[in-house]
Structures are given as C-alpha cells and as structure tokens.
C-alpha cells in the first residue's frame, strides 16, 4: 500500500502543478485511528495529506458531481463503476474527471475489528496482508483477509473499470461461485421469518440518512423522504415509515448499485442496509444479466425497454 500512496501523491502533485485539474478528491487520515475521510485538495503542497489504506471504505464517486472545472478522483473498482453510472446518468462528463484508478484488495470491516476490543482502539497500522491494532489494554495482529467487509469478500470487480492512470498494479479478480449467499439465505426463509429478519435489521435505525448521503446514487435535489408536499413517508421512528424508507431507497438504486458498501459503512447503528439492495442486484443480474457500472454505452435495465424484458409479473 505504501508504494501506492507515494504514487497517488506524485500523480496528484503533477496534476496540480501542471494545472491539469483544479482539485484532487482523495482520502486523508481521519480524526480517530482506523478511519479515513474524504478530502478535496487544491494546492500541490497539500498532496502529502493524501493516504490510501484498507479503511478507505467510502465511495469518492459521491463527491464528483456539480464540480466546476476539471477534477481528479481516486477510484477503487467499485468507485470507478459508480463514476461510469454518473457518466451514463449525465451527472458528470467523462472529460471532466481525471480518474486515478487504484486496484483494490478489499476494505476492512471496522465493526468486526472493534468488537475484538473492549476499550477504544488507539493505533492502527497495516503491513502488507496484516493489520496491527492496539488499544490501551492489548495489541492484536490480524490477517486482513479474515476481516474484509462482506461486499469486498464477494467483489468480482476490484480493478477499476475506467481510469486515466493507475496508482498500482492490476490485481487478480476473484471468481466467486455463489455471489449472493446472503440473499439466498434470506430467500430460503418462510415469508413471516423474512419479515421478522427485516424488522430486526431495521429496528435500531435512527433515520439519520447517513446511508443515503454516503451513496453516490442518491443525488436527487430533494429526496422523497424530505418532500413535504406530498409527504410520501412519515418522518419519525414509526417502524412502517422506517421500512418504507429502506424499501424505497433500495428500489431507487435498482440496477444502479455497485455494492460498494459505503451505505453500510456510514451507518452509525451498524445496520447492513445492503440486505435490501443486494436482492435487487441479484434480480437484475438473474433477469437482465446486468451488473451496474461496467459499460459506458449501456443504459441500466430499469431505464431502457427491450422486447425481451421478462414480463411475467404483469397480467
């Protein structure tokens, strides 16, 4: 990863030095250990602030809309697929973004690591495939691959699908025989048990909308949850309103979601909201052979009509 950081900083420095771009969007160290946050850099002196490691789980494609002038952005496999989706949906022009592609080895599941410690984590270091984590009471050395986020374990597009320059060597893509084990597990339950699964999943939701805000797909000027005339969904903690929010948020991502995991990463209550979107990802794959963000020339299936579309749901 270290060589990759050096490369990212060099590329960013050159781009800003030659005034090829006005800003570089990347990751910087967060205010606590084992965290990074998005940063926008406009001066070449600041490129030292850029970092890249296994905690960069947010999706930077979320920050490239409505920018004036040319910008550069760091993109993992999934981010690059959301950039493709943005280009298809006219949120940004291809020639307006300079994509610094980062072949990815997966991001870590921070909650899983935190659960190993009773006290606060004070230090996080990465050394190749191992993670060294310290709190005031103990120090753990973990294998990164045992602590990957679920979406990263199942990811089949780790290399950026679109880029102007690469900050590292391409990685070997994983071939996953059963790409949707989680969805199948829920589908195998009886209707009432499925209902209970989703009730339990969302019972701690505080409607903070961090999941929506972290998602590059959610760029409506006024989200349906914020509309007041008409008010589509109640604004409080009523469980039916919570369910309606989650159901509709997921449906608005149908055929567009890249399973980047930023939504689940952002949730302060550790709710795996991907349980909703993954079902739709599986359906669009089964019905249309579609995975989002792989091809600049194809419209997402819910956005295009084809005489071969499956239509047995309608009478």
């Amino acid at each position, binding site marked *: 990863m270290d060589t990759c950081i050096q490369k990212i900083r060099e590329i960013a420095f050159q781009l800003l030095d030659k005034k090829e771009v006005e800003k570089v969007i990347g990751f910087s160290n967060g205010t606590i250990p084992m965290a990074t946050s998005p940063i926008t850099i406009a001066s070449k002196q600041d490129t030292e602030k850029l970092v890249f490691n296994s905690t960069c789980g947010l999706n930077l494609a979320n920050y490239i809309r409505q920018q004036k002038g040319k910008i550069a952005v760091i993109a993992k496999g999934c981010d690059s697929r959301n950039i493709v989706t943005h280009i298809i949906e006219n949120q940004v022009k291809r020639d307006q973004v300079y994509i610094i592609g980062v072949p990815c080895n997966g991001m870590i599941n921070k909650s899983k690591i935190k659960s190993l410690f009773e006290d606060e984590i004070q230090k996080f270091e990465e050394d190749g495939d191992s993670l060294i984590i310290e709190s005031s009471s103990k120090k753990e050395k973990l294998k990164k691959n045992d602590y990957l986020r679920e979406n990263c374990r199942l990811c089949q597009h780790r290399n950026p699908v679109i880029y102007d320059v690469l900050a590292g060597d391409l990685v070997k893509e994983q071939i996953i025989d059963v790409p949707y084990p989680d*969805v199948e597990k*829920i*589908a195998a339950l009886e*209707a*009432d*048990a*499925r*209902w*209970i*699964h*989703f009730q339990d999943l969302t019972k701690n939701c505080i409607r903070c909308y961090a999941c929506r805000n972290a998602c590059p797909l959610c760029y409506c000027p006024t989200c349906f949850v914020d509309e007041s005339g008409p008010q589509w969904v*109640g604004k409080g903690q*009523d469980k*039916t*309103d919570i*369910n*309606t929010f989650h*159901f509709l948020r*997921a*449906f608005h991502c*149908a055929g567009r979601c890249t399973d980047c995991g930023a939504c689940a990463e952002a949730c302060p209550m550790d709710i795996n909201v991907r349980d*909703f979107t993954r*079902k*739709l990802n599986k*359906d669009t794959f089964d019905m249309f052979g579609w995975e989002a963000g792989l091809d600049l020339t194809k419209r997402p299936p819910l956005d295009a009509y084809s005489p071969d579309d499956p239509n047995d*749901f*309608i*009478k």
Partner: protein
Amino acid sequence: MGNLLEHMGIERDRIHFSWISSAEATKFVDVVKEISNKVRALGPNKKLVKDYN
C-alpha cells in the same frame, strides 16, 4: 418491486400488476375478481401497516 416486497416477507399474492385499457371492461372485472379472491384467502394484512394510535 414485487420481488423485493416478497423478499421482505410481504405475501406475493398481495402484489398485483396489470395493464388494462379503458375499453377492456371484462378484463378489468376478471383482474379485480382474481385480486380480491387471492387477497381474501390471505386474510387481513398486518405488515407495513401504520398504527396511528
């Protein structure tokens, strides 16, 4: 949409989609009959219902 609702545990027979022209009176009657029969068989819906009390 039907698939996700079903995945969330809403019974499939509660969700119906149809396209009926204003000239297709008999189709309309048939579809409504089929829907009411299927929904009656399931009984009252208790999921995704807002309780205002």
